[in-house]
């Protein structure tokens, strides 16, 4: 198996989807079952890594352009199926009860109601306007740009975080 010793591979090809599995078939090699992940899933969703079923690196690339055009939709689909980070578009209401903060939000994946506790531990500011919240069950939610939300959502976020 070809291993990349430094930097990113120029190109990778041979991705196929078969029977619900993602495989990498390279000429002269056994097909390997792979998963595709972002290297920086929170701050910069560009560079990707392919891992085999034992979690070992098969290849890392600078972006989906490293795949032939015909395989890019497969890459995108695999990423859509793996990454579940709802993006908050509107904060409808925030309520505090006995130290637990309840949030009613509208996300790109639909409305959601969650509870937040210990903000020191569960609120991560990736930049002054980009924040990730972790609710009490362990789900995460993202606000990509607080300044781009409507004024009342912004106010609720600033009051609560």
């Amino acid at each position, binding site marked *: 198996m070809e291993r990349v010793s430094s930097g990113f591979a120029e190109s990778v090809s041979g991705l196929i989807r078969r*029977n*619900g*599995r993602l495989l990498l078939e390279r000429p002269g090699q056994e097909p390997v079952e792979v998963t595709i*992940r972002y290297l920086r*899933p929170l701050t910069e969703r560009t560079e990707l890594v392919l891992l085999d079923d034992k979690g070992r690196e098969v290849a890392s690339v600078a972006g989906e352009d490293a795949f032939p055009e015909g395989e890019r939709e497969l890459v995108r689909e695999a990423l*859509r*199926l*793996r*990454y*579940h*980070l*709802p993006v908050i578009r509107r904060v409808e209401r925030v309520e505090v*009860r*006995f*130290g*637990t903060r*309840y949030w009613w939000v509208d*996300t790109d*994946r*639909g*409305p*959601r*109601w*969650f*509870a937040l*506790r210990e*903000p*020191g531990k569960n609120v991560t500011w990736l930049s002054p306007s980009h924040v990730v919240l972790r*609710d*009490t*069950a*362990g*789900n*995460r939610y993202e606000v990509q740009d607080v300044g781009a939300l409507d004024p009342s959502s912004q106010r609720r976020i*600033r*009051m*609560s975080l």
Partner: protein
Amino acid sequence: MTLLDPIPDGLVGSPPTGFRATVSVVGDLQAEGAFGPSWVATDGERVVALSARELPVDIPLDRITEVRVDELFGASRLVAVTEGADHTLATYSRNLVSEFAALARALDDLREGRDLQLPDEIQRATCSRCGAPLPDRGATCPRCLSRGSVLRRLLALLRPYRARVALLMLWTTLGVGATMVPPLTYKMIADRVIGAGRHAELPLWIGLMLAAFLMASGFQLLTNWANAWLGARVVADMRAMLHARAQRLHMAYHNRHESGALVGRVMNDTGELQHFLIDGVPYFVVNALTFVTIAIILLALDWRLALLVFLPVPLLVLGGAGFWRLLSPLFHKRGNRVGRLHTILSESIHGVQTVKVLGQERRRESEFDQANEQLFGVHVGVDRTFTSFFGTMSIMMALGTVLVWYAGAGSIIEGTTGIGLGTLLAFVGYMALFYGPLQWFSAVLNWATNALTAAERIFAVIDQPEEGTTRADPVNPQRVRGRIRFDRVRFSYERGREVIKGMDVEVAPGEMIGLVGKSGAGKSTIINLVSRFYDPDSGVVSVDGIDLRDVDLAAWRKQVGVVAQNPFLFNSSVLDNIRYGDPEASFERVVTAARAARAHDFICAKEDGYDTLVGDGGSALSGGERQRVAIARAILHDPPVLILDEATSAVDSETEQQIQEAISALVEGRTTIAIAHRLATLRNADRLLVIDDGRIVEQGTHEELLADEDGHFARLVRLQTEINRLRAEQSTWKE
């Protein structure tokens, strides 16, 4: 229990006709991430999965070769594997991890023809009553919990001190009553002594005024005294309850929560509560009583003037509330920024060497400056808000005073309403008592909320179930023989991530077993299960044929000796530490045990001998010494079953030799389960179990296992030898 969620609305398709679910779970995500319902069910013959977007899945169980949970980013996926294909059954958020883990196991049980086993209880992430997300799995729902109920529980703690409470209330009432008297004496002096010329009455009113002042102060003193006792008493009781409960909580609780959080709860939350009970509650009660009494007196004296006094009241109350709404996020922000500054400061100091080496002093400075300036900003904000508040409140109170003087003096001059100078003076006197506390009412309410939150957090710990036996009449074995059996044991710390994946093994009495495997393979979990810090999710761990869950827990722990990798020593003498499990043990027995543990010599060589204090966590002893003290402790404890977690840290060869001798003395005649790292232990063990990914993959003696060159064990040993060789080379370089 049963796990039978009904089919939600809005799904594509329906289960095949005649399908009757025996286990079913509702999911909350679609495959590509949108929130929305799904439903996975089995009737024992097939598994059916429906969702709002995808086509239905319907697979006979006998075609499934594996049921797998894929951990995704922010979600999980339940997958059924058939010959050569993966079928996604459901995608779900972290809220449903427990439910789907139970379903996955149920599918495995049914598929392999075993009896269906569901966990006794699934701790849901949402409230079963109102559907709200819970602060913690299985916790009480804050939205279903009323402040009143927490308050009632808090008051119930006062029950043993009823007489004192009654006395306290009497003194409070008398104190407030006495405070009401002086303004009335102003009126009497003005109206009767000065106005009507009854000079002889002056000593009477002056005396009454003095007596009232003295009584008010005296009762206030008594009230505060009694209250300080009561508040501190209740909180001390709670602390004791918390500590006792913390000792008996399941290890699972301790693992789920940081130890700091529990310590914080015992100290901070009880402290907050104490502060509120001693200062907040009396303030509130006294002022509420004063407020109502004065209002009544004012109305009785002159209702028109009274209404003028009441005029600024709504403004004061609303102003106070508004002010707190402004201030509490500022306080919150200040707390966060102080924390941030602390972190930076502590990193700067602890990491000073790294910062210097990487030449990043400037960057640290600018990071600190930025956080420091932010804190400065919020400090200014807090203080300015306070100042503006006091300013506004003073103006409103002044407004009331001016109005009363204007209207009161006007009436006296006109002489139409019958208001005399005395009444006016009494009004002015009462007004000072009346307005003052009002501005703080909202503050106290806010304070009350915080204190009740603290109380609720404390009760949440107190309400946690204690560990113990599942049976009402637990078996109490006097001394077990030590036959330990694992029967189809499966276990996970976190639902959905199995650590022990079906384990069968029997250990004979007196046998020494060595557990070998990579870190994370499940070795520590096995000893946790034997110690019964946890119960298996399914299957049975038994001793002498009795299910451990049926054995009296305290009796069982007495039979198990544990020598941990990093043994914990209490901050007291070596002697106390060796006989921690049996404080009554004679000194001679302690010495015998220490000698067997090869600890006697080093203890005697210390200046204070057996009286040597071991320091915080044993910090005054070396690692090798701590281990031998722990071994001596285990020898004295004399358990039939011994658990040994060998330290990985390298010690010099002489210490190694002594520890080895100590261990040999210890394991003699006991059923021993050791996590083995040392070659000597591996050789001495009657049988080695090689653990990989929660399963026993090889077993046999050291020689037998080494003979199989392709085996797990031989590979592990080769790797270890290589590491040791590298280490040896490194140490030669250093020399």
